[in-house]
């Protein structure tokens, strides 16, 4: 929605997760999800349905798509080896989530217990998959490189007591959204995007952070190695009915999803392949494979089922109303003045 005035991205997420983290992380993570009713491979096409075409003859992927889900990106340890839930388990978790939602609504109001989040749940389809990650088979992000581990530690240190905005996250600064990527990884709000197609361009218009990623579909050469964009530089091509988008030229600041905060973020070596396939009138399969040899020891892949919605995409004016970053820095300066805080000296 319009102005966002939340707190630090990382602290928000952790705060929000905390009630579930101890007792119910398994239930939470393994439970509800939009989409992914079938495995990605099997979901490519249903027997009696054919993809509609645009006036230019391309598969028509256009529309507003909701990619919200509560299937976790990574499979919880407690569900190791279990790729899918049984129908009974899924039903039980769904029931428990409904109870939890009800309790939240009746309890002390908090920023993310409100209608934004519950709307997503109410409209959610329920899957039995236990992670969005499809490769590696354990449903986990591969181990980080030592370089990435150091980056994570450095960033965590800066974030704990930032000097200026650059010490906080890209989402805190309203430069990138948590869930916009690329890659697009569902977050806890504004999981809505709209796709547009002209003959020569594909537009991925994400509500979060109002990003219009314009993907040229011609045979242009990759961008030179000296130019970088926060969202990378994308090129697209059709492979039968699937739109394949290849993105490189990311900045060294990486992408902003919360997941990546915990893994130290990506860097300028990130290379991304995304695949958009319409699988039915109201579902679109989004798959991606991400490679970043200076961040992870091997590539990994995930799949998200997006569901067509009649909702609109709103203007997400984040930077224009960013009070939270101001507060984070004010808090940091207050911490400096607190007993023991003076030990933190300005960086040279």
């Amino acid at each position, binding site marked *: 929605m319009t102005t966002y005035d939340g707190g630090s991205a990382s602290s928000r997420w952790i705060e929000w997760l905390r009630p579930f983290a101890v007792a119910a992380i398994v239930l939470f993570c393994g439970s509800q999800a939009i989409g992914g009713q079938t495995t990605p491979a099997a979901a490519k096409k249903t027997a009696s349905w054919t993809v509609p075409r645009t006036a*230019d003859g391309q598969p028509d992927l256009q529309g507003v798509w909701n990619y919200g889900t509560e299937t976790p990106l990574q499979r919880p340890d407690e569900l190791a080896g279990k790729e899918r839930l049984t129908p009974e388990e899924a039903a039980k978790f769904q029931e428990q989530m409904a109870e939890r939602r009800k309790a939240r609504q009746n309890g002390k109001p908090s920023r993310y217990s409100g209608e934004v989040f519950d709307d997503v749940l109410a409209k959610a389809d329920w899957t039995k998959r236990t992670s969005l990650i499809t490769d590696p088979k354990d449903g986990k992000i591969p181990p980080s490189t030592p370089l990435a581990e150091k980056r994570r530690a450095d960033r965590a240190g800066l974030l704990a007591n930032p000097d200026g905005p650059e010490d906080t996250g890209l989402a805190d600064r309203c430069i990138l959204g948590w869930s916009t990527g690329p890659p697009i990884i569902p977050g806890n709000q504004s999981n809505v995007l709209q796709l547009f197609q002209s003959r020569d361009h594909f537009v991925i218009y994400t509500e979060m952070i109002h990003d219009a990623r314009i993907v040229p579909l011609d045979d242009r050469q990759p961008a030179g190695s000296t130019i970088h964009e926060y969202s990378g530089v994308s090129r697209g091509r059709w492979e039968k009915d699937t739109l394949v988008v290849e993105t490189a030229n990311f900045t060294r600041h990486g992408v902003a999803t919360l997941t990546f905060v915990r893994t130290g973020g990506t860097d300028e070596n990130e290379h991304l392949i995304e695949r958009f396939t319409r699988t039915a009138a109201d579902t679109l399969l989004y798959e991606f494979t991400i490679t970043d040899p200076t961040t992870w020891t091997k590539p990994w892949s995930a799949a998200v089922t997006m569901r067509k919605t009649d909702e609109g995409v709103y203007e997400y004016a984040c930077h224009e109303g960013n009070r939270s970053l101001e507060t984070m820095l004010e808090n940091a300066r207050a911490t400096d003045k607190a007993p023991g805080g003076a030990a933190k000296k300005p960086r040279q």
Partner: protein
Amino acid sequence: MIGVTLALTAAPSSGQEHTYRAQRTADGTPNLNGVWQALNTANWDIQTHDQRQGPLLQLGAAFSVPAGEGVVVGDEIPYQASALATRKANAEQWLTLDPEIKCYMPGIPRATYMPYPFQIVQTPSHLVFAYSFANASRIVYMNTKVEPQIDTWMGYSSGRWEGETLVIDTTGFNDQTWFDRAGNFHSDALKVTERYTATSPDALRYEVTIEDSKVFTRPWQMRMPLYRRLEQPARLWKYNCVEFAEDVIYGHLRRTPKSSK
């Protein structure tokens, strides 16, 4: 004054006068796809202006203001008396008040004639306008009246084709955006009607009517050409300017504020 009236009366008919017929998209509408840019000094001042020294002496000729012809039809902006005072104050405090300096989304029509390109991606039901500056964008809903639900920076846009001309009505603005660096402004009652007409394969005529009963005494117009970026291939590079505005906004909260050298 008579001249202004004549010009305003003549402007809407200009769309019918032209003879160029644009290439068509697959659905048969004029094809406005492409990367476009204004080439003028309207972002400095939409009215005719002399050259003048820029605000930072250290930047010398690199960031001073070139003279330019106004893009306002008749060169007069019909401010109400009270609004004129606000405009003057805005101009005097430009460096602290202009939303451009903070990398805020620039609103319409300013986004069109800032010194950065924008891209149109056209479909039968929607047009996406993506602007380089501040990574701003808007969706134009064709043949659908979108009702503003909340004030926004880039507005709610409804479009339609009138022959060769794309007409876009935009409302639902907040009162935070400006028209230029000279302090020209509007309120949240702003209504913008834009007309885009191809005059050759590589140029558009851009006409925009401004209505705002809280600030102006009558509607007024701007008009300018827009040019296609002819790089092969052209790409819209985003000017993600947030990071450059952070010290303006948050610099006082650093342990040691940076100083310009």
